[in-house]
Protein backbone atom coordinates (compact mmCIF):
# COMPACT_ATOMS: atom_id res chain seq x y z
CA UNK A 1 0.00 0.00 0.00
CA UNK A 2 1.14 3.52 -0.77
CA UNK A 3 2.63 5.49 2.13
CA UNK A 4 0.74 8.44 3.62
CA UNK A 5 3.02 11.51 3.63
CA UNK A 6 1.30 12.72 6.80
CA UNK A 7 2.97 9.83 8.66
CA UNK A 8 6.47 11.00 7.79
CA UNK A 9 8.70 13.89 8.72
CA UNK A 10 11.51 15.24 6.59
CA UNK A 11 13.82 17.88 8.00
CA UNK A 12 16.36 19.81 5.93
CA UNK A 13 19.07 21.24 8.24
CA UNK A 14 21.06 22.43 5.20
CA UNK A 15 24.39 22.07 6.98
CA UNK A 16 26.53 19.20 8.23
CA UNK A 17 26.49 20.05 11.92
CA UNK A 18 22.71 20.38 11.94
CA UNK A 19 22.31 16.97 10.31
CA UNK A 20 24.80 15.30 12.68
CA UNK A 21 23.20 16.88 15.77
CA UNK A 22 19.80 15.62 14.73
CA UNK A 23 21.17 12.12 14.06
CA UNK A 24 22.78 12.11 17.51
CA UNK A 25 19.80 13.60 19.34
CA UNK A 26 17.59 10.55 19.03
CA UNK A 27 19.71 7.50 18.28
CA UNK A 28 18.49 5.30 15.44
CA UNK A 29 15.36 7.40 14.90
CA UNK A 30 16.53 9.39 11.91
CA UNK A 31 17.29 8.13 8.42
CA UNK A 32 19.37 10.24 6.04
CA UNK A 33 18.03 10.75 2.53
CA UNK A 34 20.39 11.98 -0.20
CA UNK A 35 19.21 11.47 -3.81
CA UNK A 36 16.35 9.31 -2.55
CA UNK A 37 16.63 6.76 -5.36
CA UNK A 38 16.61 3.90 -2.87
CA UNK A 39 14.70 5.51 0.01
CA UNK A 40 11.85 6.90 -2.12
CA UNK A 41 11.30 3.57 -3.85
CA UNK A 42 10.77 1.95 -0.45
CA UNK A 43 8.63 4.86 0.69
CA UNK A 44 6.39 4.73 -2.37
CA UNK A 45 5.88 1.01 -1.88
CA UNK A 46 4.79 1.67 1.71
CA UNK A 47 7.83 -0.23 2.99
CA UNK A 48 9.82 2.55 4.63
CA UNK A 49 9.71 1.85 8.36
CA UNK A 50 11.71 4.95 9.38
CA UNK A 51 9.28 7.80 9.91
CA UNK A 52 11.86 10.56 10.40
CA UNK A 53 14.10 11.59 7.56
CA UNK A 54 16.97 14.03 7.36
CA UNK A 55 17.65 15.63 4.02
CA UNK A 56 21.40 15.53 3.31
CA UNK A 57 21.13 16.29 -0.42
CA UNK A 58 21.98 19.98 -0.08
CA UNK A 59 24.87 19.81 2.39
CA UNK A 60 27.91 21.44 0.72
CA UNK A 61 30.55 19.38 2.59
CA UNK A 62 29.04 16.21 1.13
CA UNK A 63 29.01 17.49 -2.44
CA UNK A 64 32.63 18.45 -3.08
CA UNK A 65 35.39 16.60 -4.88
CA UNK A 66 38.92 17.47 -3.74
CA UNK A 67 41.96 16.46 -5.75
CA UNK A 68 45.28 15.98 -3.93
CA UNK A 69 48.58 14.86 -5.46
CA UNK A 70 48.24 11.36 -4.03
CA UNK A 71 44.45 10.87 -3.72
CA UNK A 72 41.04 12.13 -4.64
CA UNK A 73 38.35 12.69 -2.06
CA UNK A 74 34.76 12.38 -3.25
CA UNK A 75 31.96 13.84 -1.13
CA UNK A 76 29.44 11.13 -0.28
CA UNK A 77 26.52 13.01 -1.85
CA UNK A 78 28.21 13.43 -5.24
CA UNK A 79 25.95 12.07 -7.95
CA UNK A 80 26.79 9.63 -10.70
CA UNK A 81 26.48 12.47 -13.20
CA UNK A 82 29.07 14.52 -11.30
CA UNK A 83 31.40 11.52 -11.14
CA UNK A 84 31.09 10.83 -14.86
CA UNK A 85 31.80 14.46 -15.70
CA UNK A 86 34.80 14.79 -13.39
CA UNK A 87 38.04 14.83 -15.33
CA UNK A 88 40.20 12.93 -12.82
CA UNK A 89 37.51 10.38 -12.03
CA UNK A 90 36.92 9.58 -15.68
CA UNK A 91 40.65 9.51 -16.51
CA UNK A 92 42.14 7.72 -13.50
CA UNK A 93 39.18 5.84 -12.04
CA UNK A 94 37.41 4.64 -15.15
CA UNK A 95 35.95 1.62 -13.35
CA UNK A 96 33.97 4.01 -11.16
CA UNK A 97 32.94 6.25 -14.06
CA UNK A 98 31.80 3.19 -15.99
CA UNK A 99 29.79 1.85 -13.05
CA UNK A 100 28.20 5.31 -12.72
CA UNK A 101 27.12 5.12 -16.37
CA UNK A 102 25.31 1.84 -15.62
CA UNK A 103 23.37 3.06 -12.62
CA UNK A 104 19.90 3.53 -14.06
CA UNK A 105 19.05 6.11 -16.69
CA UNK A 106 20.19 9.73 -16.79
CA UNK A 107 17.44 10.87 -14.38
CA UNK A 108 18.65 8.30 -11.86
CA UNK A 109 22.29 9.31 -12.36
CA UNK A 110 21.34 12.94 -11.73
CA UNK A 111 20.07 12.01 -8.25
CA UNK A 112 21.73 8.78 -7.10
CA UNK A 113 24.85 9.29 -4.98
CA UNK A 114 27.96 7.24 -4.30
CA UNK A 115 27.41 7.49 -0.52
CA UNK A 116 23.85 6.25 -0.99
CA UNK A 117 25.08 3.25 -2.97
CA UNK A 118 27.57 2.40 -0.20
CA UNK A 119 25.18 2.90 2.73
CA UNK A 120 22.35 1.08 0.99
CA UNK A 121 24.79 -1.85 0.97
CA UNK A 122 23.21 -3.99 -1.71
CA UNK A 123 25.52 -6.84 -2.77
CA UNK A 124 24.36 -6.08 -6.33
CA UNK A 125 25.35 -2.40 -6.24
CA UNK A 126 27.38 -1.50 -9.30
CA UNK A 127 29.93 0.98 -7.88
CA UNK A 128 31.08 -1.10 -4.96
CA UNK A 129 33.39 -3.59 -6.73
CA UNK A 130 35.26 -0.59 -8.19
CA UNK A 131 35.71 0.90 -4.69
CA UNK A 132 37.12 -2.45 -3.50
CA UNK A 133 39.79 -2.69 -6.20
CA UNK A 134 40.78 0.97 -5.84
CA UNK A 135 41.43 0.50 -2.07
CA UNK A 136 38.87 3.17 -1.14
CA UNK A 137 38.99 4.68 2.34
CA UNK A 138 35.80 6.07 3.86
CA UNK A 139 35.62 8.98 6.27
CA UNK A 140 32.70 8.51 8.65
CA UNK A 141 31.59 11.47 10.71
CA UNK A 142 29.38 12.07 13.73
CA UNK A 143 29.20 14.65 16.52
CA UNK A 144 31.73 12.40 18.29
CA UNK A 145 34.30 13.03 15.55
CA UNK A 146 35.65 11.51 12.38
CA UNK A 147 37.11 8.08 11.67
CA UNK A 148 38.78 6.77 8.56
CA UNK A 149 38.09 3.16 7.68
CA UNK A 150 39.21 1.02 4.74
CA UNK A 151 36.13 0.42 2.60
CA UNK A 152 36.87 -3.31 2.50
CA UNK A 153 35.93 -3.52 6.21
CA UNK A 154 32.64 -1.60 5.80
CA UNK A 155 30.23 -4.44 5.00
CA UNK A 156 29.90 -7.05 7.73
CA UNK A 157 27.09 -9.18 6.29
CA UNK A 158 24.07 -8.96 4.02
CA UNK A 159 22.98 -5.29 4.25
CA UNK A 160 25.00 -4.99 7.49
CA UNK A 161 27.64 -2.30 7.86
CA UNK A 162 29.86 -0.76 10.50
CA UNK A 163 28.11 2.63 10.12
CA UNK A 164 26.85 3.74 13.55
CA UNK A 165 23.32 5.13 13.89
CA UNK A 166 24.62 8.65 14.45
CA UNK A 167 27.16 8.59 11.60
CA UNK A 168 27.19 9.79 8.03
CA UNK A 169 29.61 8.84 5.30
CA UNK A 170 31.46 12.11 4.73
CA UNK A 171 33.67 11.19 1.80
CA UNK A 172 35.28 8.42 -0.18
CA UNK A 173 39.01 8.71 -0.74
CA UNK A 174 40.79 6.88 -3.58
CA UNK A 175 44.60 6.68 -3.86
CA UNK A 176 45.86 7.91 -7.24
CA UNK A 177 48.11 4.98 -8.01
CA UNK A 178 46.16 2.91 -10.49
CA UNK A 179 46.16 5.11 -13.57
CA UNK A 180 48.77 2.92 -15.30
CA UNK A 181 46.84 -0.29 -14.64
CA UNK A 182 44.82 -2.04 -17.28
CA UNK A 183 41.22 -1.77 -16.13
CA UNK A 184 38.15 -3.70 -17.13
CA UNK A 185 34.53 -3.45 -15.95
CA UNK A 186 31.65 -5.57 -17.05
CA UNK A 187 28.03 -5.78 -15.94
CA UNK A 188 25.83 -8.70 -16.86
CA UNK A 189 22.13 -7.99 -16.41
CA UNK A 190 18.94 -7.92 -18.42
CA UNK A 191 20.25 -4.61 -19.77
CA UNK A 192 22.89 -2.15 -18.60
CA UNK A 193 20.78 0.82 -17.51
CA UNK A 194 17.65 0.21 -15.46
CA UNK A 195 18.45 -3.38 -14.57
CA UNK A 196 20.06 -4.68 -11.43
CA UNK A 197 23.19 -6.71 -12.11
CA UNK A 198 23.13 -10.48 -12.15
CA UNK A 199 26.92 -10.28 -11.82
CA UNK A 200 29.33 -7.36 -12.22
CA UNK A 201 33.11 -7.26 -12.27
CA UNK A 202 35.67 -4.55 -11.62
CA UNK A 203 39.25 -5.55 -12.36
CA UNK A 204 42.70 -3.98 -12.48
CA UNK A 205 45.92 -5.59 -13.59
CA UNK A 206 49.52 -4.98 -14.51
CA UNK A 207 51.76 -7.26 -16.51
CA UNK A 208 55.55 -6.93 -16.47
CA UNK A 209 58.00 -9.18 -18.36
CA UNK A 210 55.21 -11.53 -19.35
CA UNK A 211 54.01 -12.14 -15.79
CA UNK A 212 51.20 -10.64 -13.71
CA UNK A 213 52.77 -8.05 -11.46
CA UNK A 214 49.59 -7.06 -9.65
CA UNK A 215 45.96 -7.97 -10.09
CA UNK A 216 42.80 -6.80 -8.30
CA UNK A 217 39.41 -8.43 -8.81
CA UNK A 218 36.02 -7.68 -7.26
CA UNK A 219 32.57 -8.99 -8.05
CA UNK A 220 29.03 -7.88 -7.24
CA UNK A 221 26.02 -10.18 -6.71
CA UNK A 222 28.02 -13.30 -5.92
CA UNK A 223 28.05 -13.13 -2.11
CA UNK A 224 26.15 -11.38 0.72
CA UNK A 225 28.55 -8.43 0.31
CA UNK A 226 30.52 -6.99 -2.62
CA UNK A 227 33.45 -9.39 -2.83
CA UNK A 228 37.16 -8.89 -3.43
CA UNK A 229 38.75 -12.13 -4.72
CA UNK A 230 41.81 -12.11 -2.43
CA UNK A 231 42.77 -15.76 -2.87
CA UNK A 232 42.44 -15.72 -6.64
CA UNK A 233 44.53 -12.56 -6.80
CA UNK A 234 47.27 -14.16 -4.69
CA UNK A 235 47.24 -17.26 -6.82
CA UNK A 236 47.58 -15.22 -10.04
CA UNK A 237 50.31 -12.83 -8.92
CA UNK A 238 53.72 -13.45 -10.47
CA UNK A 239 52.38 -15.96 -12.99
CA UNK A 240 52.29 -15.95 -16.75
CA UNK A 241 48.80 -15.90 -18.23
CA UNK A 242 48.29 -19.21 -20.02
CA UNK A 243 45.40 -21.67 -20.33
CA UNK A 244 46.37 -23.69 -17.25
CA UNK A 245 46.48 -20.52 -15.15
CA UNK A 246 43.04 -19.49 -16.40
CA UNK A 247 41.69 -22.92 -15.43
CA UNK A 248 43.18 -22.56 -11.97
CA UNK A 249 41.71 -19.05 -11.67
CA UNK A 250 38.22 -20.33 -12.54
CA UNK A 251 38.49 -23.01 -9.83
CA UNK A 252 39.69 -20.45 -7.33
CA UNK A 253 36.83 -18.04 -8.19
CA UNK A 254 34.30 -20.83 -7.54
CA UNK A 255 35.87 -21.44 -4.13
CA UNK A 256 35.66 -17.77 -3.15
CA UNK A 257 32.15 -16.81 -4.26
CA UNK A 258 28.90 -17.67 -2.48
CA UNK A 259 26.16 -16.90 -5.00
CA UNK A 260 22.47 -17.51 -4.35
CA UNK A 261 19.31 -18.14 -6.34
CA UNK A 262 16.98 -15.14 -6.40
CA UNK A 263 14.44 -13.44 -8.66
CA UNK A 264 17.13 -12.15 -11.02
CA UNK A 265 19.19 -15.26 -11.52
CA UNK A 266 20.42 -18.59 -10.18
CA UNK A 267 23.54 -19.51 -8.24
CA UNK A 268 24.62 -21.79 -11.09
CA UNK A 269 24.31 -19.08 -13.72
CA UNK A 270 26.11 -16.57 -11.50
CA UNK A 271 28.99 -19.01 -10.93
CA UNK A 272 29.38 -19.60 -14.66
CA UNK A 273 29.25 -15.87 -15.43
CA UNK A 274 31.68 -14.96 -12.63
CA UNK A 275 34.23 -17.42 -14.06
CA UNK A 276 33.65 -16.19 -17.60
CA UNK A 277 34.11 -12.56 -16.60
CA UNK A 278 37.41 -13.31 -14.86
CA UNK A 279 38.51 -15.34 -17.90
CA UNK A 280 37.60 -12.50 -20.22
CA UNK A 281 39.57 -10.05 -18.10
CA UNK A 282 42.66 -12.30 -18.00
CA UNK A 283 42.55 -12.75 -21.78
CA UNK A 284 42.40 -8.99 -22.25
CA UNK A 285 45.14 -8.43 -19.70
CA UNK A 286 47.34 -10.94 -21.54
CA UNK A 287 46.71 -9.18 -24.85
CA UNK A 288 47.49 -5.86 -23.21
CA UNK A 289 50.71 -7.28 -21.74
CA UNK A 290 51.76 -8.69 -25.14
CA UNK A 291 51.13 -5.34 -26.82
CA UNK A 292 53.08 -3.37 -24.21
Amino acid sequence: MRADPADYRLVSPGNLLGALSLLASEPAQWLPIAGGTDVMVLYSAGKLTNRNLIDIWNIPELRQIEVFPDRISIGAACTYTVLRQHEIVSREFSLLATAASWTGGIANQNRGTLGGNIANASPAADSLPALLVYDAVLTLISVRGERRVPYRTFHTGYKQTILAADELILNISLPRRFSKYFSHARKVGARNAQAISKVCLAALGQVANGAIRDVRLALGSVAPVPLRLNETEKMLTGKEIEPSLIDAARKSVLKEIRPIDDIRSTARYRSAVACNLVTEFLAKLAAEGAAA
Partner: protein
Amino acid sequence: MNPSSAESAKRGISFIVNGEAKKVLAHPMERLLDVLRNNLGLTGAKEGCGEGECGSCAVLLDDMLVNSCLIPIAQANGASVVTIEGMSAHSLMKPLQESFLECGGAQCGICTPGMILAAAHLLDKKLDPTLADIREGLAGNLCRCTGYMQIFEAVAKAARRRVTQ
Protein backbone atom coordinates in the same frame (compact mmCIF):
# COMPACT_ATOMS: atom_id res chain seq x y z
CA MET B 1 10.81 16.98 18.51
CA ASN B 2 9.43 13.64 19.51
CA PRO B 3 10.08 11.05 16.82
CA SER B 4 7.65 8.45 18.16
CA SER B 5 4.75 10.64 17.12
CA ALA B 6 6.08 11.14 13.62
CA GLU B 7 3.09 13.15 12.52
CA SER B 8 4.27 15.78 10.11
CA ALA B 9 2.78 19.20 9.83
CA LYS B 10 2.24 20.71 6.43
CA ARG B 11 4.87 23.21 5.47
CA GLY B 12 5.10 26.13 3.10
CA ILE B 13 7.14 25.22 0.04
CA SER B 14 8.29 28.01 -2.28
CA PHE B 15 9.65 27.17 -5.68
CA ILE B 16 9.63 28.30 -9.27
CA VAL B 17 7.48 26.27 -11.60
CA ASN B 18 7.75 26.93 -15.32
CA GLY B 19 9.19 30.34 -14.57
CA GLU B 20 6.52 31.41 -12.08
CA ALA B 21 7.02 31.68 -8.31
CA LYS B 22 4.68 29.27 -6.51
CA LYS B 23 3.90 28.61 -2.89
CA VAL B 24 2.15 25.44 -1.77
CA LEU B 25 1.31 23.96 1.60
CA ALA B 26 2.35 20.31 1.69
CA HIS B 27 3.69 17.52 3.85
CA PRO B 28 7.47 17.46 3.24
CA MET B 29 7.39 13.84 2.01
CA GLU B 30 4.68 14.46 -0.58
CA ARG B 31 6.08 13.60 -3.96
CA LEU B 32 6.89 16.42 -6.34
CA LEU B 33 4.82 14.50 -8.93
CA ASP B 34 1.68 14.69 -6.77
CA VAL B 35 2.16 18.35 -5.91
CA LEU B 36 2.54 19.23 -9.59
CA ARG B 37 -0.53 17.27 -10.59
CA ASN B 38 -2.84 17.78 -7.61
CA ASN B 39 -1.91 21.17 -6.18
CA LEU B 40 -0.82 22.94 -9.35
CA GLY B 41 -2.98 21.20 -11.95
CA LEU B 42 0.03 20.37 -14.14
CA THR B 43 -0.87 16.91 -15.40
CA GLY B 44 1.81 16.63 -18.09
CA ALA B 45 4.05 14.57 -15.82
CA LYS B 46 2.41 11.12 -15.54
CA GLU B 47 2.70 8.36 -13.00
CA GLY B 48 3.72 5.17 -14.76
CA CYS B 49 5.56 3.01 -12.26
CA GLY B 50 5.96 5.25 -9.22
CA GLU B 51 9.40 3.78 -8.58
CA GLY B 52 11.88 5.53 -10.82
CA GLU B 53 11.85 2.93 -13.60
CA CYS B 54 9.80 4.43 -16.43
CA GLY B 55 10.53 8.17 -16.78
CA SER B 56 6.93 9.18 -17.50
CA CYS B 57 7.05 11.54 -14.50
CA ALA B 58 10.30 13.22 -15.64
CA VAL B 59 10.73 16.96 -15.08
CA LEU B 60 13.72 19.29 -14.96
CA LEU B 61 14.76 20.26 -11.43
CA ASP B 62 17.34 23.06 -11.50
CA ASP B 63 18.03 22.07 -15.13
CA MET B 64 18.61 18.42 -14.26
CA LEU B 65 16.38 15.65 -15.58
CA VAL B 66 14.81 13.86 -12.59
CA ASN B 67 11.92 11.50 -11.95
CA SER B 68 9.42 13.51 -9.92
CA CYS B 69 7.94 10.37 -8.32
CA LEU B 70 11.19 10.02 -6.34
CA ILE B 71 11.51 13.63 -5.17
CA PRO B 72 10.02 14.60 -1.81
CA ILE B 73 8.60 18.09 -2.19
CA ALA B 74 10.82 19.44 0.61
CA GLN B 75 13.82 18.71 -1.63
CA ALA B 76 12.32 20.99 -4.29
CA ASN B 77 11.97 23.91 -1.87
CA GLY B 78 13.76 26.92 -3.41
CA ALA B 79 14.39 25.07 -6.68
CA SER B 80 13.26 25.74 -10.21
CA VAL B 81 11.08 23.10 -11.85
CA VAL B 82 10.23 22.83 -15.52
CA THR B 83 7.47 20.47 -16.65
CA ILE B 84 6.38 19.69 -20.19
CA GLU B 85 3.85 22.52 -19.87
CA GLY B 86 6.74 24.95 -19.42
CA MET B 87 8.64 23.71 -22.45
CA SER B 88 6.62 25.61 -25.04
CA ALA B 89 9.00 28.55 -24.75
CA HIS B 90 12.09 26.33 -25.15
CA SER B 91 13.92 26.71 -28.47
CA LEU B 92 14.09 22.90 -28.88
CA MET B 93 10.36 22.46 -28.57
CA LYS B 94 9.44 23.22 -32.16
CA PRO B 95 12.01 20.89 -33.77
CA LEU B 96 11.17 18.13 -31.28
CA GLN B 97 7.42 18.45 -31.82
CA GLU B 98 7.74 18.44 -35.59
CA SER B 99 10.11 15.47 -35.62
CA PHE B 100 7.99 13.43 -33.20
CA LEU B 101 4.97 14.06 -35.47
CA GLU B 102 6.80 13.19 -38.67
CA CYS B 103 8.49 10.07 -37.31
CA GLY B 104 5.54 8.64 -35.40
CA GLY B 105 7.37 9.19 -32.12
CA ALA B 106 4.16 9.30 -30.09
CA GLN B 107 1.20 6.94 -30.02
CA CYS B 108 -0.79 6.83 -26.77
CA GLY B 109 1.31 9.73 -25.51
CA ILE B 110 1.82 8.59 -21.92
CA CYS B 111 5.60 8.45 -22.27
CA THR B 112 5.83 11.52 -24.50
CA PRO B 113 6.27 14.33 -21.94
CA GLY B 114 9.13 12.40 -20.31
CA MET B 115 10.64 11.50 -23.69
CA ILE B 116 10.58 15.14 -24.80
CA LEU B 117 12.17 16.34 -21.55
CA ALA B 118 14.84 13.64 -21.68
CA ALA B 119 15.50 14.49 -25.34
CA ALA B 120 15.73 18.23 -24.57
CA HIS B 121 18.08 17.52 -21.63
CA LEU B 122 20.30 15.51 -24.01
CA LEU B 123 20.21 18.02 -26.86
CA ASP B 124 20.98 20.87 -24.47
CA LYS B 125 24.27 19.13 -23.66
CA LYS B 126 25.10 17.55 -27.03
CA LEU B 127 24.83 19.45 -30.27
CA ASP B 128 25.25 16.44 -32.53
CA PRO B 129 24.33 13.26 -30.61
CA THR B 130 25.11 9.80 -32.01
CA LEU B 131 22.50 7.04 -31.93
CA ALA B 132 24.35 5.64 -28.91
CA ASP B 133 24.05 9.02 -27.15
CA ILE B 134 20.33 9.11 -27.90
CA ARG B 135 19.79 5.55 -26.68
CA GLU B 136 21.65 6.35 -23.48
CA GLY B 137 19.87 9.67 -22.98
CA LEU B 138 16.47 7.98 -23.26
CA ALA B 139 17.37 4.69 -21.52
CA GLY B 140 15.38 5.70 -18.44
CA ASN B 141 12.18 6.31 -20.42
CA LEU B 142 9.98 3.37 -21.25
CA CYS B 143 7.45 3.29 -24.09
CA ARG B 144 4.89 0.52 -24.48
CA CYS B 145 3.69 1.62 -27.92
CA THR B 146 6.25 2.75 -30.46
CA GLY B 147 9.08 0.24 -30.22
CA TYR B 148 11.55 3.11 -29.68
CA MET B 149 13.05 3.32 -33.18
CA GLN B 150 10.62 6.07 -34.18
CA ILE B 151 11.51 8.02 -31.05
CA PHE B 152 15.28 7.69 -31.60
CA GLU B 153 14.80 8.80 -35.20
CA ALA B 154 12.69 11.76 -34.09
CA VAL B 155 15.36 12.93 -31.67
CA ALA B 156 18.11 12.54 -34.28
CA LYS B 157 16.00 14.50 -36.73
CA ALA B 158 15.33 17.26 -34.22
CA ALA B 159 19.09 17.55 -33.63
CA ARG B 160 19.76 17.86 -37.37
CA ARG B 161 16.91 20.31 -37.76
CA ARG B 162 18.29 22.49 -35.00
CA VAL B 163 21.72 22.57 -36.62
CA THR B 164 20.33 23.58 -40.01
CA GLN B 165 17.76 26.06 -38.67
